[in-house]
C-alpha cells in the first residue's frame, strides 16, 4: 500500500516538476527579452560635443538607469549597415553625408520604470534631447504576459497540490484502513492519539520524501538530454533561444518539491488516521 502511495506522490510531483521546468524557461526568456529592451535618446544635432557629457551625466543620475552608452553618428551608421548588410552598395553613399543623429542607448534596472524613464528623458529637452525612441507598447505586452504566466503557474501549482493531497489521503487511508484492527486494539489498551499517529506520520513523511526526491532527480538529466537533443536537431535554436541552466532550476525545484512532498505525506497520513482516533 505504501508503494501505491509513493507512486501517487511521484506522479503528482513529476507533473509539478515538468511544469516547473516549462514555467522557469518561459520566465527566463521573458526576463531576457525584457532586460534587453531599452530606450534610445536622440541628441539634438546642434548640441556641442562638450555638452554631451553633461547630458550623459544628467541621465545616468536617474536612479533606475543601469547602463548608458553614447552612440556617435559613425557608430550608428555602422550598426545600420551591419543590419542591412545585403544592401551595402545602395547605402555606400550615406557615408559621405551621414544623416544619422547621435544618441544614447539606455538600459534600465527594471522595466517597471519604463514610463518614468521616458518622461524624465523627454524633460531634458533644454539640455539637448531631441526626442526619445521607446518600445513602451511592446514592454507592456511582455509585462502582462509574464504577469499572466505567474498567475497561471501559481494556480496550477495550487491545484496540483490540492489534487495530490486528495489522492494521497485516499491512498494512505487504504493503508490505515488495513490496520484499523490494530488501531482499535491500541485504543482499548489506552494508547494516546500521538502514540498511534506518529508511525503513520513517519510513514507519510517517508512516502512524501521518496515520492518527491525521485521525480526531481529524474527531471534534471532528462532536461539536459532534451536541450542537447534540441540543439543538435535544430541548431538555429541556439541563436534564438537560450535554456535556463538545469542546475539552477534543480536547486530551485528541490526544496519546493521536497517540502510539497513532505507536506502532502504528513497531511495525508494525519487526516487518514484522524477518522479512527475518535473511538
Amino acid at each position, binding site marked *: 500500500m505504501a508503494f501505491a502511495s509513493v507512486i501517487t506522490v511521484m506522479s503528482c510531483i513529476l507533473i509539478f516538476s515538468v511544469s516547473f521546468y516549462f514555467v522557469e524557461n518561459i520566465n527566463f526568456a521573458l526576463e531576457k527579452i525584457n532586460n534587453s529592451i531599452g530606450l534610445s535618446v536622440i541628441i539634438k544635432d546642434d548640441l556641442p560635443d562638450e555638452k554631451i557629457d553633461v547630458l550623459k551625466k544628467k541621465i545616468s543620475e536617474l536612479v533606475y538607469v543601469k547602463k548608458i552608452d553614447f552612440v556617435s553618428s559613425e557608430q550608428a551608421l555602422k550598426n545600420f549597415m551591419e543590419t542591412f548588410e545585403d544592401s551595402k552598395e545602395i547605402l555606400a553613399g550615406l557615408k559621405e553625408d551621414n544623416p544619422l543623429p547621435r544618441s544614447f542607448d539606455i538600459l534600465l534596472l527594471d522595466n517597471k520604470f519604463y514610463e518614468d524613464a521616458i518622461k524624465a528623458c523627454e524633460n531634458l529637452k533644454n539640455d539637448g534631447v531631441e526626442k526619445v525612441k521607446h518600445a513602451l507598447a511592446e514592454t507592456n505586452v511582455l509585462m502582462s504576459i509574464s504577469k499572466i504566466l505567474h498567475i497561471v503557474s501559481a494556480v496550477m501549482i495550487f491545484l496540483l497540490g490540492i489534487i495530490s493531497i486528495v489522492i494521497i489521503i485516499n491512498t494512505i487511508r487504504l493503508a490505515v484502513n488495513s490496520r484499523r*484492527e490494530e488501531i482499535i486494539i491500541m485504543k*482499548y*489498551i*489506552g494508547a494516546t492519539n500521538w*502514540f498511534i499517529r506518529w508511525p503513520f506520520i513517519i510513514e507519510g513523511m517517508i512516502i512524501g520524501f521518496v515520492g518527491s526526491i525521485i521525480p526531481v532527480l529524474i527531471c534534471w538529466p532528462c532536461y539536459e538530454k532534451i536541450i542537447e537533443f534540441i540543439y543538435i536537431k535544430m541548431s538555429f535554436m541556439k541563436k534564438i533561444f537560450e535554456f535556463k541552466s538545469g542546475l539552477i532550476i534543480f536547486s530551485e525545484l528541490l526544496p519546493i518539491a521536497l517540502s510539497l512532498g513532505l507536506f502532502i505525506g504528513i497531511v495525508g497520513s494525519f487526516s487518514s488516521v484522524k477518522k479512527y482516533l475518535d473511538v
Partner: protein
Amino acid sequence: MICLNDVTKIYDNQAKGIENVSLSIKQGEFVFIVGTSGSGKSTFIRLLLKEVDLTSGEIIVSRQNLSLIHPKLLPYYRRNIGVVFQDFKLLPNKTVYENVAFAMEIVQASSKDIRRSVPAVLSMVGLEKKYKDYPNQLSGGEKQRTAIARAIVNKPPLLLADEPTGNLDPDNALEIMKLLEKINSHGTTVIVATHAKDLVDSMKKRVITFVEGNLISDVEQGVYDYEVAQS
C-alpha cells in the same frame, strides 16, 4: 468501585441500549451480566470503557465521573481497565509474546519491565510453552488466554469481558471462566457479560440480568434465570 446512577443510553438511531440502570459493584467482586442478545450487555461494557457516552445519568468508576473525563485523558483512564472480547482481537502478525508485550509498549513500559512481566503473565494463563506461536497456530481457548494475558499484563484493577467464551467449546469455556476466577482471586474486579447459562450457574457468583435494556434482577450467588431473562 463502580457506581451507576439512573443510566440511560439511547443510540443515535434511537435504539435503546440500556435504560434507567442503577447499580454498584465493589472492588474485588466477580459479576456476571446476563441477558438475551440485544438486552444491553455490550452497551454496559462499552459505557464503562467510555467507548460510547451515556445519554443521561451518571457513571462513577474509581471515583471518576466518566462524563467529566477529558478526551485527552481517556487513554490514561483506559489503562486502568483490561478488556477481553468474544473475537479475541489479537494481531495476526505478532506472536503470543509480542501480542502481550504490545500492551506494555503502548503504555511505554521499559523493555526490562516487559521482559519480566510478559513471561510471568504467560505462565499464569498457562501459555508459557506457546509464546512463539502466532494466533493462527492456536486453539480458540489459547487465543482467549493470550487476549486475557494481554488484558492483565499492565495489572489493571478492573477486567471487563464481553462474551469471552462465545466462540469456545464448553471445556475451553469453563477453563477460561476458571482463569477469570483466578485473576479475580488476586484482587482484580471482574465483570463478565455472557449468555452461557451452564457456566453462570456453576460459578455461583453475583448475577445481574438485563431485559431489553432494563436491569431486572441482581442476585448474589445467583443462577441464570431463564424465566426472568425471557420475561
